[in-house]
């Protein structure tokens, strides 16, 4: 039997009817067309599917859509300003070239913002530790860590 959900996604009220086994990432990508959130490993390890639920970074492939009922969800599409100006963390990833293929990037950015919200002046060690749940198979993380530090400084302004 289908379940009905109401939640807020990127500032907009969403009402959806889903099969109970629908994952949050499936609701976002398939029903709402928000394909910026990626499915990497699909086993809750790589973090490519990271979005914010009530301000906290979570893996949307390891959460039923029904678990986000009533929640405020923000995806990568919800970060930029209305005029298209990128979020400081997105801009930092671009400027520092904190990516190669880009597949993990949206999850990295969402985790990085949660990280900076809790540790506004995070050290390099803290950044590396906090990104444990996000895997990048291209970069060796060096430019990602640089981007997060630069993004943190920009977010503080």
């Amino acid at each position, binding site marked *: 039997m289908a*379940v009905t959900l109401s939640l807020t996604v990127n500032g907009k009220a969403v009402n959806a009817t889903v099969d*109970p*086994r629908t994952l949050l990432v499936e609701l976002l990508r398939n029903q709402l067309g928000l394909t910026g959130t990626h499915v990497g490993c699909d*086993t809750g390890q790589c*973090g490519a599917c990271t979005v914010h639920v009530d301000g906290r970074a979570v893996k949307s492939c*390891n959460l*039923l859509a029904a678990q986000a009922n009533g929640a405020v969800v923000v995806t990568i599409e919800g970060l930029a300003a209305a005029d298209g100006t990128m979020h400081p963390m997105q801009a930092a990833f671009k400027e520092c070239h904190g990516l190669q293929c880009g597949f993990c990037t949206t999850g990295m950015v969402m985790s990085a913002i949660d990280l900076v919200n809790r540790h506004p002046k995070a050290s390099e060690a803290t950044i590396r530790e906090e990104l444990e*749940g996000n895997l990048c198979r291209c970069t060796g993380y060096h430019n990602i860590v640089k981007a997060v530090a630069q993004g943190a400084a920009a977010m503080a302004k």
Partner: protein
Amino acid sequence: MYPFELHRPASIADAAALLAKTGGKALAGGQSLVAAMKLRLAQPGHVVDLSGLAELKGIRREGDAVSIGAMSRHADIASSDVVKGAIPALAALAEGIGDRQVRNVGTIGGSLANNDPAADWPAAVLGLNATVHTNKRKVPADEYFRGMYETALADDEIIVSVSFPVPKKAAYAKFPNPASRFALVGVFVALSGPGVRVAVTGAASSVFRCKPLEDALARSFTAAAAKAVKVDAAGLNADLHGSPAYRAHLVSVMAARAVTSAG
């Protein structure tokens, strides 16, 4: 994932009645259950979502104990001033579970109901001689853990909270598997009025108390005393990550590290 029916009860009584009637599974944070259902390792026909139950939330100091609601997320426990003030070892353990995204969703009650042989919370519950409060009764830690993924919980029994007595000293030391970050061996050491308790996770099919280490640390609560104990390898896990002898050695080493960090 196989199809299932989802129930969203508003009270513990309704949730228990649904579990009894349907034979379904309770859903807390789902960081193990949802993953297991995706892999079809678990295939419940009914899932009872506990997230609407206010009685399962909240962290409080209650006399000589800290009471943690079953639906408290690892991240909430790690950052709780009550927990950090009374039993800092619990906050540190919570901060070391999985990764940030998992800690933001996974709950202490879910972890204890699942009783993964390499989970961290069982070591704290057994090490601190905590009491598991359910909708039916209070279960002492020594009677709660029954084996691999097995607990004393009945099918329609729901963990409401866990009550941890405040120890004099306590610490948890984990040797994480470098890939999964689950405990290859994790040791929780606690010194309190009634004595010393040492609980080991990751090393066997379920969390267990290590009597030789408890006796040695009761005589001398020092890292050297822990390190000198030769733990019996019989019955410990053997897999590609480590032999029973390797794990037995790690138990003493991690106990020594825990004693050092307990101060």
